[in-house]
């Protein structure tokens, strides 16, 4: 293993320094890490992941199963084949045995950029076939993008080949120059097409830039010029360092000027091996013999005429060596065994066209008997496959594994350390399908995803089962074609950019006040406003007490708001809600449920009638988008003739709820021209006017059971009005409260939160809310389903209240409820329901909960058990079933 004095595409005047396993070495510009390792005598520095056997560089491409490295500089890479890592000055890498290792905490994953591109033609693969296809497309005037996972163009073109009358490398240079000069042609080396998806969508991972890039490409045509990978042959000790594919031997000689061995045996099933034999000899390395499985071939005669020793009809049956190969054991046609000293065995078992991208988008495979391989067949009409990928590979005699009594060192998948014996054992269990064998043996599931082993494994299965070659093809292929780190796919969309965060216009005031926030959908809402030293529950209970005994205020701007406008708005809302919104007078407000077609509660909210043709409806904070979408769906697809328009106005309004017995005084003190007296401003009505000097709409709705006003003002006045109300409320001890207190207050009244106390299986009757469903007004969405037999069952789960028997125990939300006789029983036990909401309460003197409970309304007064652990008796909490309204059931407090 050494650098030759001349030859290859490396720059001998440009030495590069790199470290491997912590030690300094030198390579050349143009090297890959693998070629640099080889000429530093480090080609054998690897270990197999399971058995710990010595392994060496076996290939020169992405199919490499052994030479896996972790790269720590210049840019971290968890695991990569050394054959695909371009050498750069300062590169630092180390061998890994098949399993990568995440960097420790504090190591920031490098960022990645994402960009989009639209082209007429995308070419995957920059070899001779791909460059030719790109040139044809460019001449047509297409926008062209050509990507290649290697750092050079030309693929496996050899210096001694001739393309269109030119030496291959000269042709590659000339064609690449022509393409670079063309308008609208982009050539991207070091860029892997990870997957080809519907309608010409291709995801490309570009690695050559300081910051990696993901390209989202939409192409009218995709040309797959992905080439072919040479196939290994399974023989005893075929994993020993020094066993290398013949095409890789050629690449190291021809492209990198590296001699991968001093004394070679070539083992071939076709003419390909002779190319390596001649190149080795030309480089000054003796070739002991070409072992050719064919009994006769023209290539054999020509090679003999050139003075090469050919052993026809023979196989390499085994290897010897302490670590690296020192000899090949050749079995002749007559069975006689010969030991040939060699430190390199160049293997050519035929070719596998690289069809994975094609298969993953629906392309098929067809077995080509003359070439002993699967070639692409069919597939979408916007994909064409060209060159070696299309099956333009040399004829090959089939030879998958070398028969022997002991097959336990005939390696099939070197990354999983799986042998022909392991495949045989899998078949011995009765498996027949290659897919099943893959799942039992894990062949093809390692970092290389079976590139080197997949086709071989399938044919080993065929041969062991006595089926002909090609009876079963390789296992299915799925993207990504090459492993890609999640941080690359995530790109910039992480941390603060992972999802949008919505803040109310009043948000800065909450921050200044030291609020603790919670995320509700995309919204950030104050959860509670702790004073010095207060725990969460201390703060929440203080905020609740303020609302029940004095006055509190909450930023309710996140409430979804939709304006429904048009002459048919009343009819439309009658069909969307359980209540008769058309019967509202202007100035009135009505609460309603929105049901799914299946009769289940979908959302809830109030409708305010603003005019004869105009409503403002509110939705839950998290439900605004889906309610608007539901309105649009029904309006557009079922009743396009209804004159109604729906517009989201959530962010146009800031909403502050002022709740508590002193709410009226606070509004008056803040300065309003609306008469907020009990007589002039009844419950469930709204009034327009001014507050704190700005226009406002006041609404008398209550989610706490206390006297309450919602103050709606234009978003940009939100902060001003918040501060004004806070100041006006000082004499009354006004207390800002968050979602924590809001939830306790509403639950004490038995008011549901859709999505917390309901889960898409809950009907209005289950909630005890049949009173809100107007069955006399005509049809509305979900109405017919309410009569379905399943929705009339008496054992449906009803919303109930729970009071823990031990009055200081808090039931965990989500806990399953069981009957007393199952409180101590080992699971599985019948589950009667579950806890949906659970809080502490000052006015109730202890914790309480809401729950959905089978036949719950028939169980009032009985005791159920909340199972809170794995099944031990101590982990069940007893609770008494009650009606779900705990506080002020007669509603005496809502008018203050």
């Amino acid at each position, binding site marked *: 293993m050494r650098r030759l004095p001349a030859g290859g595409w490396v720059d001998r005047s440009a030495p590069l320094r790199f470290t491997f396993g912590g030690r300094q070495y030198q390579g050349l510009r143009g090297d890959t890490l693998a070629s640099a390792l080889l000429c530093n005598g480090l080609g054998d520095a690897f270990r197999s992941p399971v058995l710990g056997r010595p392994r060496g560089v076996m290939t020169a491409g992405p199919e490499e199963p052994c030479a896996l490295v972790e790269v720590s500089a210049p840019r971290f890479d968890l695991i990569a084949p050394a054959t695909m890592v371009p050498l750069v000055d300062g590169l630092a890498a180390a061998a890994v045995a098949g399993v990568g290792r995440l960097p420790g905490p504090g190591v920031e994953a490098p960022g990645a950029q994402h960009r989009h591109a639209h082209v007429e033609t995308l070419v995957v693969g920059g070899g001779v076939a791909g460059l030719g296809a790109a040139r044809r497309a460019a001449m047509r005037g297409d926008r062209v993008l050509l990507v290649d996972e290697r750092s050079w163009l030309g693929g496996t073109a050899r210096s001694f080949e001739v393309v269109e009358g030119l030496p291959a490398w000269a042709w590659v240079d000339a064609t690449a120059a022509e393409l670079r000069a063309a308008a609208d042609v982009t050539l991207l080396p070091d860029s892997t097409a990870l997957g080809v*998806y*519907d*309608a*010409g*969508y291709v995801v490309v991972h570009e690695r050559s830039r300081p910051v990696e890039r993901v390209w989202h490409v*939409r192409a009218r045509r995709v040309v797959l010029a992905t080439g072919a990978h040479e196939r290994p042959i399974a023989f005893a000790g075929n994993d020993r360092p020094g066993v290398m594919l013949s095409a890789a031997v050629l690449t190291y000689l021809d492209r990198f000027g590296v001699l991968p061995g001093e004394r070679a045996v070539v083992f071939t099933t076709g003419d390909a091996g002779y190319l390596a034999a001649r190149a080795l000899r030309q480089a000054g390395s003796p070739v002991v013999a070409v072992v050719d499985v064919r009994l006769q071939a023209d290539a054999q005669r020509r090679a003999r005429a050139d003075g090469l020793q050919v052993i026809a009809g023979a196989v390499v049956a085994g290897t010897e060596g302490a670590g690296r190969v020192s000899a090949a054991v050749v079995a002749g046609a007559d069975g006689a065994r010969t030991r040939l000293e060699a430190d390199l065995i160049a293997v050519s078992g035929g070719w596998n066209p690289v069809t994975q991208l094609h298969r993953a988008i*629906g392309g098929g495979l067809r077995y080509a008997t003359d070439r002993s391989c699967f070639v692409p067949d069919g597939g*979408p009409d916007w994909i064409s496959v060209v060159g070696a990928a299309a099956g333009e590979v040399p004829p090959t005699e089939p030879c998958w594994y070398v028969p022997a009594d002991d097959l336990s060192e005939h390696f099939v998948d070197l990354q999983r350390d799986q042998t022909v014996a392991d495949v045989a054992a899998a078949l011995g269990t009765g498996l027949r399908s290659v897919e099943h064998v893959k799942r039992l043996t894990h062949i093809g599931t390692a970092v290389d995803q079976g590139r080197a082993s997949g086709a071989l494994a399938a044919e080993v299965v065929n041969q062991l089962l006595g089926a002909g070659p090609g009876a079963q093809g390789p296992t299915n292929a799925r993207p990504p074609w090459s492993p890609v780190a999640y941080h690359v796919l995530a790109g910039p969309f992480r941390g603060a950019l992972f999802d949008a965060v919505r803040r109310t216009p009043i948000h800065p005031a909450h921050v200044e006040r030291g609020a603790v926030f919670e995320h509700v959908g995309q919204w950030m809402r104050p959860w509670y406003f702790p004073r010095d030293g207060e725990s969460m529950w201390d703060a929440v209970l203080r905020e609740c007490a303020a609302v029940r005994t004095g006055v509190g205020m909450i930023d309710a701007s996140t409430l979804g708001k939709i304006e429904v406008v048009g002459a048919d708005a009343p009819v439309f809302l009658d069909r969307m809600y359980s209540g008769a919104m058309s019967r509202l007078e202007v100035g009135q407000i009505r609460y309603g449920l929105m049901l799914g*077609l*299946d009769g289940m509660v979908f959302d809830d909210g109030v409708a305010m009638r603003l005019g004869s043709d105009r409503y403002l409806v509110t939705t839950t904070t998290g439900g605004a988008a889906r309610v608007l*979408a539901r309105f*649009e*769906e029904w309006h*557009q*697809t*079922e009743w396009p003739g209804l004159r109604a328009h729906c517009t989201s106005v959530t962010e146009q309004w800031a909403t502050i709820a002022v709740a508590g017995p002193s709410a009226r005084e606070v509004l008056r003190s803040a300065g309003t021209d609306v008469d907020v007296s009990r007589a002039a401003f009844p419950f469930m009505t709204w009034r327009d006017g001014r507050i704190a000097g700005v226009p406002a709409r006041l609404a008398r709705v209550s989610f706490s059971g206390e006297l309450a006003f919602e103050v709606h003002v234009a978003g940009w006045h939100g902060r001003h009005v918040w501060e004004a109300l806070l100041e006006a409320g000082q004499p009354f001890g006004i207390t800002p409260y968050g979602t924590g207190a809001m939830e306790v207050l509403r639950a004490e009244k038995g008011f549901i939160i859709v999505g917390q106390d309901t889960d898409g299986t809950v009907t209005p009757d289950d909630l005890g809310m049949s009173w809100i469903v107007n069955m006399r007004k005509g*049809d509305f969405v979900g*109405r*017919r*389903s309410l*009569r*379905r*037999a399943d929705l009339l069952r008496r054992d449906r789960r009803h919303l109930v209240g729970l009071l823990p028997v031990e009055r200081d125990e808090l039931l965990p939300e989500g806990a399953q409820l069981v009957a007393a006789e199952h409180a101590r029983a080992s699971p599985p036990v019948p589950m009667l329901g579950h806890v949906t909401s659970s809080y502490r309460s000052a006015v109730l003197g202890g914790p309480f909960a809401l729950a959905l409970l089978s036949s719950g309304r028939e169980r009032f007064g009985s005791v159920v058990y909340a199972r809170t652990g794995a099944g031990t008796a101590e982990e069940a909490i007893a609770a008494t079933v009650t009606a779900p309204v705990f506080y002020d059931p007669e509603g005496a407090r809502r008018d203050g």
Partner: protein
Amino acid sequence: MLLVPCPWCGPRDEVEFSYGGQAGIAYPADPEALDDAAWADFLFMRDNPKGPFAERWNHVYGCRRWFDVVRDTATNDLMEA
């Protein structure tokens, strides 16, 4: 990723759309006139062919319009309905 032909905006990436299931299932004129079996058939039963399938899409991150397309479920080829 599909390229969905929005009749208003032109072809756009699939991620801009939400899927609405089988097209052409009209809401019954008088749901109350249907017995439980007929209502359940409307509510729950949908075709699942291999081949051309008329289905609904909503350009939810675009013009927000609903429209129908025909998709070949075997090839994912989309055609305007």
